[in-house]
């Protein structure tokens, strides 16, 4: 369970996240939606201690984020950000192996190799695991990064726009992988998603942010309404029901 209490962050005078208080349900896929600059990514970064919060508390499994040891928290919570550039030549497998660092500090055991292989298979990179990452396409690199996060094997997984650089096929495949992780392995995934329809189709809960505040939050079925989406994004939309799933038509 992740609990946010009155969390705020500002850069200079600009308030990016404004007294956000919200619980994040364990064992669910929570998608964070909202217009650009609403503070979604900053919120995610604060939960994953990439940037320090100004005020408020973030509790992860009962412990305030500051009271967690960095090494211990890395076994509990993993995070993936958008842009990744590397100065070193690594193979995909070496990159994914880094996911095991919090547990073994670089000395891989049999269990590690098993998990690494499993993660590579899940993102469909097992065949080219020995390729160098500087030869990969944007989508392949993104999947390699996701495999690393999977190998980290944490209860909480935070993904910042994981569908960036991915084509339709791999977007769907990735969301399916995330779904399996939530449903079959009981992981908690929090992700920032821009494509509202992916959020509507795959997430359990939605957190809608606007101008630094939580605009609305709740289960997907209740959140995806014409009025809600219109208020969040300030555009006219049509919500279509099709085979029990909701689609937002925004153009």
């Amino acid at each position, binding site marked *: 369970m992740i609990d946010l209490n009155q969390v705020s962050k500002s850069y200079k005078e600009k308030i990016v996240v404004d007294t956000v208080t919200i619980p994040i349900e364990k064992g669910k896929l929570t998608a964070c939606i909202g217009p650009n600059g609403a503070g979604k990514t900053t919120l995610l970064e604060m939960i*994953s*201690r*990439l940037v320090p919060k100004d005020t408020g508390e973030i509790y992860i499994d009962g412990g305030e984020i500051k009271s967690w040891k*960095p*090494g*211990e*928290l*890395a*076994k509990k919570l*993993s*995070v*993936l*950000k958008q842009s*990744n*550039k*590397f*100065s*070193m*030549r*690594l*193979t995909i*497998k*070496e*990159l994914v*192996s*880094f*996911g095991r*660092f*919090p547990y073994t*500090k*670089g*000395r*891989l055991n049999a269990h590690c190799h098993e998990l690494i292989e499993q993660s590579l298979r899940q993102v469909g990179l097992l065949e080219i695991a*020995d390729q160098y990452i500087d030869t990969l396409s944007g989508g392949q690199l993104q999947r390699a990064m996701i495999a*690393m*996060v999977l190998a*980290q094997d944490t209860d909480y997984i935070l993904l910042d726009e994981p569908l960036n650089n991915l084509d339709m096929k791999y977007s769907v495949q990735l969301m399916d992988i995330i779904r399996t992780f939530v449903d079959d392995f009981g992981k908690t995934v929090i992700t920032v998603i821009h494509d509202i329809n992916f959020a509507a189709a795959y997430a359990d809960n939605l957190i809608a942010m606007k101008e630094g505040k939580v605009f609305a939050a709740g289960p997907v079925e209740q959140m995806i309404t014409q009025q809600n989406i219109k208020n969040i994004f300030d555009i006219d939309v049509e919500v279509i029901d099709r085979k029990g799933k909701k689609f937002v038509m925004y153009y």
Partner: protein
Amino acid sequence: MTDNKHVYRNIFIAAILAMIMASIYMTIGSRGNWSYILSLRGKKLAALTIVSICSTTATILFHTITQNRILTPSIIGMDAIYIFFQTISLFLFGHNHWFLQNTYTNFFLSTVSMTCFSLLLYWFFFKNFPGRIYLLLMTGLILGTFFRSATSFLQVLIDPNEFLILQNRLFASFNNVDSSLINVSMIVVLPVLMYIFYKNKAMDVLHLGRTNAIGLGVNVDRFNLILFISISLLVSISTALVGPVMFLGFLGANVSYKLFKTYQHWLLIIGGCLFTISFVLFGQILIEHVFKFQTALSIILEFVGGSYFLYILLKEKEVA
């Protein structure tokens, strides 16, 4: 992690090369005068080895922290501090003062002044601007320029005789290293190296960038601070021992990346140090037996290192 065979093989070759160089250096033209040769050349060999290890290790760490392979630790201006300290102490006390005559106090105080300067700088930056490595480097660069200007101002005022003494000190020299200083250096260098090897896997994680490293549980800001302090200690010792050598570490580090083609620090550091030791010994053999002491080793080191630096710069330009 992956197949390291070619890396181990290359390191093995570098080790053999270093040993061959060391034995050539120790035995060439000895004429059987062993007790004399061993103490004289052994001392120089030890100094050369310490300086090679310090500068190469410091540069590799520096590259990892800054994620940039064409920088050298001298950008923070530690050599400028050393030169400034030597100049101002000569300026204030004159060369006859006990303070400058005693090798220990001079060595000790130059090390302390360099380390303290960098500690102050880091402490200020890591407290106020965590994660802003480039801002730190820029400030170091500017402070270095400041100290260099202050130094040349003092050098203009100084007595010409003392200026000659000073100039002698500011050229890196391996020929008159005090053997008692070597032991003192080891006391500082060994624990630093042990710490670095203990943490070598965490340094590998730094390659993934700040975000990913934090995500994997490395306390990046604190770790960077500790690594910066280690770099300062290594550079200070090396500089206090023989004087400033700028491009030696740069050469060792970059050749190491080329030769060993791995991201693992423990391999890069060992390999790089072995290469640097062989290179420095080769240079010293040239100096002693080909040039007959007509030129200084530091000139050869800086010439080769500097040329390599230019080569890398031009190559990077083509890529970009």
